[in-house]
């Protein structure tokens, strides 16, 4: 159970679209599943209310019915993805469901932070890029964490922002907690001044 999955630095996959703005973390994983004390196996609750009826049968109208978990590892979603609750269960469930990256024109702060700590890559791009992907479902993309670029077939290459430290941690599997622990002496010195 690593703090984050180490990542080769490149994600080559097809996209899956959820063209909805403001997808909150209650949609990604409803609160009824938060009584767990585990972080694994939460994919079955991912977008639960979108996928299942009250009686537990699959919803025939669910957009996620057509999702191919093996080939579509890049989720493309509307603006302000991951707003609301700070539950880290949201990226845990998205990863376990099969997504490795989310493309959106804006991410909520806490979701973005949680995603990066678990190796789920938030790819923030202009709305025009998202709109292009919405118009071209199941589209081939190649996302390079090192160069912070996404190659989108028939569109071109776009940049996305990623703090150097996050990119470093993601590509080398470096652990943020270890980084803080390396500065124990600074922390001790700070506490001594209090």
């Amino acid at each position, binding site marked *: *159970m690593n*703090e984050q999955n180490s990542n080769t630095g490149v994600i080559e996959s097809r996209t899956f679209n959820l063209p*909805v*703005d*403001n997808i*909150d973390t*209650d*949609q990604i994983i*409803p*609160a*009824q599943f*938060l*009584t*767990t*004390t*585990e*972080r694994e196996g939460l994919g079955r609750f991912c977008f639960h*209310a979108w996928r299942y009826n*009250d009686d537990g049968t699959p919803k025939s109208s669910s957009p996620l019915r057509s999702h191919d978990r093996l080939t579509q590892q890049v989720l493309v979603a509307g*603006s*302000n993805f991951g*707003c*609301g*609750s*700070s*539950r*880290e269960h949201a990226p845990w469930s998205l990863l376990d469901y099969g997504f490795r990256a989310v493309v959106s024109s*804006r*991410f*909520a*702060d*806490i979701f973005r*932070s*949680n995603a990066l*700590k*678990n190796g789920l890559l938030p790819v923030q791009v202009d709305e025009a890029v998202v709109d292009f992907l919405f118009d071209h479902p199941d589209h081939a993309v190649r996302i390079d964490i090192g160069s912070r670029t996404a190659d989108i077939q028939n569109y071109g290459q776009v940049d996305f922002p990623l*703090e*150097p*430290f996050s990119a*470093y941690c993601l590509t080398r599997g470096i652990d*943020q*907690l270890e*980084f*803080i*622990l390396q*500065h*124990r002496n*600074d*922390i001790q010195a*700070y*506490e001594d001044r209090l």
Partner: protein
Amino acid sequence: MTRPSTLFEKIWQRHVVRQETADTPAILYIDLQLLHEVTSPQAFDELKRRGLQVRRPDRCLATIDHSTPTTPPDADGTRHYVTEQAKAQVDRLHANCAGHGIELHGWDSPHRGIVHVMGPELGATQPGMTIVCGDSHTATHGAFGALAFGIGTTEVGHVLATQCLLQTKPKTLGIRIEGELGPAVTAKDVILHVIGVLGVGGGTGSVIEYFGSTVRAMDMESRMTMCNMSIECGARAGMVAPDQATFDYLQDRPLAPQGEDWTQAVEDWKTLSTDAGASHDRLVEIDAADIRPSVTWGTNPGMVIAVDGRVPDRDGAATREALEYMQLRGGARLAGEPVNVVFIGSCTNSRLTDLRAAASVLEGQQVANGIRVLVVPGSEATRRAAEAEGLDRIFLAAGAEWREPGCSMCIAMNGDIARPGDLVVSTSNRNFKGRQGRAVRTVLASPLTAAASAITGRVTDPRGFLEPRQGAMQA
């Protein structure tokens, strides 16, 4: 002379253990970590896996609130949890806190409550502090001039192990609110109005400082209500510079500084305000006169109208979908819409002044036929104070339920849940689809609006229910 700085910058600067560099975020010291049962177990597991100890158990404070039943226990003390797993989660926090020497306010504590109600009541929340919790409504504590924000479970582990977090400095957003609030306009209406103006993502990447004469005039519980919902426009933190109201609230609280320490602390706290000449990265100005009792009509907290207003009828997928979910017609009035449940509680509106406001409307009245009304105090201390004033008897006489403290129907993970299709007028903070139960339609409102709606059984403008009865109903 030092460069003029904002309240946020002063607190940030005091807590930098290691400065941000081009390649690495700052290491920021955290004065207080609040813990609850839902977002902490995996963090404790991670410490165990790595063989790490909790660095400063004295800087942690824990409670149980989310998964806990709000029904009274049986005579033999048995609590009725929604599932065995919910009970196991609470038991796990007890074990983790006992194992690491962390103070936990469990069932037997006279202070137990919603984490963002209990912290301030105990005086644990103080000006100038950095405060975190695995909970997005941690912004509440910013009402005291603290830098307080929600974090994920991995970061909960970071703070347990190191008392520090890696942070990139956010931008600041000043929200100046000037003028006197109108009748029946509360802090809840103010923050709903602000979120309506900014939009549900308008504060992303920012820390908000609320200031201006309207904010200055607010009592501490109102400031907490306002700061609480900062996250609903995307801001991780919201804060108000401390003043005499802050000091008066904190004085003599169990965990507040005492004696000579108190005097020194207040002197320091008085320096915690934004200097003249310092500016925020962005400024939004709000005229208090524009704020009416406000409610949400849709499926995120940015979908706000005045309670006497009409829901939007403009085209657009988001509006259409929200209207469809809420079973509302574009351009229609929300006032008058039949209500099934009224929920008065949550870390936004479960404090004594909230309960007093609701009771002032419900006193001598009856809840409308067939309407379920839950009143859930935010903490044991609030419950005792409310019962000492007889507020519980007012609620019970009106036909409402008076329950035990907890998050209850705000997050609806403890079994306090509405039925599919129900319309809930709720003093909580989120109206996301399914938040209060499958297909449940949430209308966020102030305690006054919620109480007025309980009496009529319809979404109701509270201005006709003010004490003393005001003859003229304002349209």
